[in-house]
Structures are given as C-alpha cells and as structure tokens.
C-alpha cells in the first residue's frame, strides 16, 4: 500500500533551553545516529536517536533556540531503528523548519528490502505553544516502492516551498509536488 498522504502528528518540542535542560532525555548510547546538515539557513541538527519506537531529533534553529522533535514513523521502520540520516532541508526563521529523516527498512522474508531505506519529510511549525501540527510525507520507500528523482527535494526559500520530484510517486508514476508553508508554519492543504 502506498502511503504518501499527509499525516498529522503530535510535535513534542522543548521550546527553550530551560525546558530541554529540565527533561534531558539524552540520546541512547546504543543507538548512535549520523546527523548531517544541508541547510540553506542556519538551522542544524545537533543530535538524533530512537526512544520508545519514536524518533527524537534535536535541532538548533536560527537565533540559537534548541528544540527536540519527536517524530512518528510507520510500520516500514523497525521500532528500535535509529535514523541513519537527519538533514535540514530549509527553514523559515521563527516559523517553520523542514527536515528529512532516513532509516533502514524493516526487512521482509528472503532479504526483501534488507538493504532498503525509508525516508520522511517533516514540516515543523516553530511558533510558541504546544502541541503543534507536524506535517509528514513519505518521500522514499523500499517497502512501498516510492523513489525520488535526482535531485529529489528542492527548497525554494522565497516562496516557502518544498518541491518534491518523484521518479515513482504515490501514484506509481513520475510526479512533482509542491509543499507550501503558510505564515503560521503549517502546510497549506492540497486541493
């Protein structure tokens, strides 16, 4: 089943250093994760891991504020699988951050997708107050046969748009989709 539809989830974030310091919830030593930053802005990932079947990503956004994101995954990722890569795609300062998180696929029988990957795009509103709406879209998936083109994701800062290029999209065909971020950091609903 293809699942590239929008999913609303709870974003749990520490919205200040003080909050984060009070509930440290540190990365687990047994699930190290590589983190990279390909930011067009100053935002960067400072840590990531898995806890209780969910991903946590520590991000330092512009202005130096640190937040912890708790990101849901789907059944194509093992519950104890830490993110292989977390990458900042773009940022609307003070409004939203866009990132991707990538995992090894949950393998099936006969080594099916044992070397595959699952990748999610997240659009995270940064306004104060919680909880916030987190937008998730499945970008690439061995288990669901979703494949990005090359390049696959463009960040168009002036229009606050993420442009996704699929070689094989949710409909099983090449597809280009624009994900536009509102002034409040939420994703505009697709018509």
């Amino acid at each position, binding site marked *: 089943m293809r699942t590239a539809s929008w999913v609303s989830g709870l974003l749990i974030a520490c919205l200040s250093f003080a909050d984060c310091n009070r509930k440290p919830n540190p990365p687990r030593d047994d*699930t*190290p*994760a*590589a983190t990279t930053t390909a930011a067009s802005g100053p935002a960067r990932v400072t840590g990531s891991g898995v806890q209780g079947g969910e991903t946590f990503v520590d991000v330092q956004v512009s202005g130096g504020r640190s937040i912890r994101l708790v990101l849901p995954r789907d*059944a194509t990722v093992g519950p*104890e*699988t*830490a*993110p*292989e890569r977390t990458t900042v795609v773009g940022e609307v300062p003070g409004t939203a951050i866009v990132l991707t998180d990538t995992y*090894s*696929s*949950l393998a*099936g*029988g*006969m*080594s*099916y*997708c*044992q*070397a*595959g*990957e699952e990748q999610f795009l997240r659009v995270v509103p940064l306004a104060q107050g919680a909880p916030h709406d987190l937008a998730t879209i499945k970008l690439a998936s*061995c*288990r669901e*046969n979703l*494949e990005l*083109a090359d390049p696959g994701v463009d960040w168009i800062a002036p229009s606050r748009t993420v442009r996704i290029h699929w*070689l*094989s999209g949710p409909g*099983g065909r*090449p597809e280009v989709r624009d994900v536009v971020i509102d002034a409040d950091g939420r994703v505009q609903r697709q018509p």
Partner: protein
Amino acid sequence: MTFTEPAPNATFTITTLPLWPTIVFATDAHGPHTWEWTIGWDVFSAAGSVNTASGQWNAAMAIGNRGGKLTVRATAGGATATITVNIRAANPSVTEVTNYLNSRPNSDGFGAIVAHETNSIQFRNNLPVKSGDSGYGICQLTNPRPTFEQAWNWKMNVDAGLALFAQKRFAAMTFLGQSGRTFTSEQLRRETVCRWNGGPYHRWDDQAKKWARNPDILCDTQTRNIGWDLTLAANTGRTEADLRTRDHPYAVPRPAGAGYNFFGVCYADRVLG
C-alpha cells in the same frame, strides 16, 4: 454412531504438484448428515459445515488449499461422532519450483533469489517452514501477511512472492527507462534483483551514454550483501581486504553511521554472480 472411515489420526499427504488428497468421511449411521469441520495449523484456522443426504462426505472441497489438523464432527438423527486426521505435504523438488517459476511471466531473476535464500524449501518434516520472523514457505512471506493457503500451497506462496518481485521489476523499468534511456534484459534483471534487496544497481554513464554498475560500491565478496560506499571519506581509496579488516566482525544490527552498510548492489552481485 462411529466413523467407519478414515482411521482416527490418519495422515494424508499433499503431493508435490501440489495435489490435495481425497479424504472421505463415512459413518455407520443412515440418512441425512451434517459435517462440521475445522482445520488449523499454526496461527491459521478455518471452519465450516456441510449437509449431505447420506453418511458419506468428501472433505476435499472444504479443505481447499489448506493443511494441518482436520477435525470433523458428524451429526445424524441426534447422534454425533468426532474424528481428527492430519494433512501433511511433500516438498517440491528444486526442478519443480524452477519449472514453475520459468512458466510465470516477468519472473527473470526471482528463481535466483529463491535458490539463494531458501533453496526452494516449502515444507520441513511435511509441515510449512516458518522462519524466526514468521516468514512462511518458500518465499518466507511476512508482510503482507500470508494466507492459510499460501502457507500450504507452494505455488500460491511463490505467486505471492512474485507479486512483490513484479513491483520491483516495474520500478526497475521506470528507473532504467527514464529520459528515454535504453537498457538490456540483463541490466533489467540485475536492477530488479538489486531493488528486491534495496536501492538501485546502475548509474547512468553520461559519457558512454549507457547504464553501468554503481562504481562507488565496493562489496565484501565473502558476505551476502555487505559493502562500502567509497564516496565516504573513511572508505575512499581503501581495498576490500583493508576495509574488511577494519570492520569485521560486522555488528548485527548494524549501528547507524557505521563505515560499512548493506547494499542491494552487493546482493545482486552475489545472487547473480
């Protein structure tokens, strides 16, 4: 009221074709009968009820493509009797599985995966094989979860695996055919087998105007699909032996960020030679 046939706890065997045995139940009672049956194995079960005008019933239709323990309760004129028999299966030969695969469309490469992964074994001790992660039969079907029938009918099991393989073949054709590019049947075969395990096999060589194996993946040829991405600074310029010495033994599960990884490219090289 008693069953006159079959013998209690009798065992019936599904042939390698596979052909299900005729299992006739009969009682010493006369007149209309009701036959309530249940069949179960592992997490699978099915049940039903059949009425007949006399005291004899062939259970073949009710069993369908299933196996395991079959219990039948017969009722006639207020009397009842219950009996249990066993249905087991003979494992198909590698040749039978290969011939079947060759008869199926778009299966090129799947036989090599089956041979590499399970050696065409559907039954062990005349019961369906079940791997540690609840993968059933020749294709170790897990997700989508297999049906009762796919656990017992090896051809249905292979067909379910082929359905997944067909998705990978379609993705391979889309990938190789992008921008009007051409590809050979051998490239399609490798691309499909690679994607079964994960990721693309080929990279477009813009100078030669043709597809070529991803040159950045170096495989540990002593493993199933472990290799190294030579574009990573820690791996660049190093040899297979050198990297194996550095990383072996490989931790399971692989820690995120490790220098080695699992690659469909290496899997395809291993499976297809």
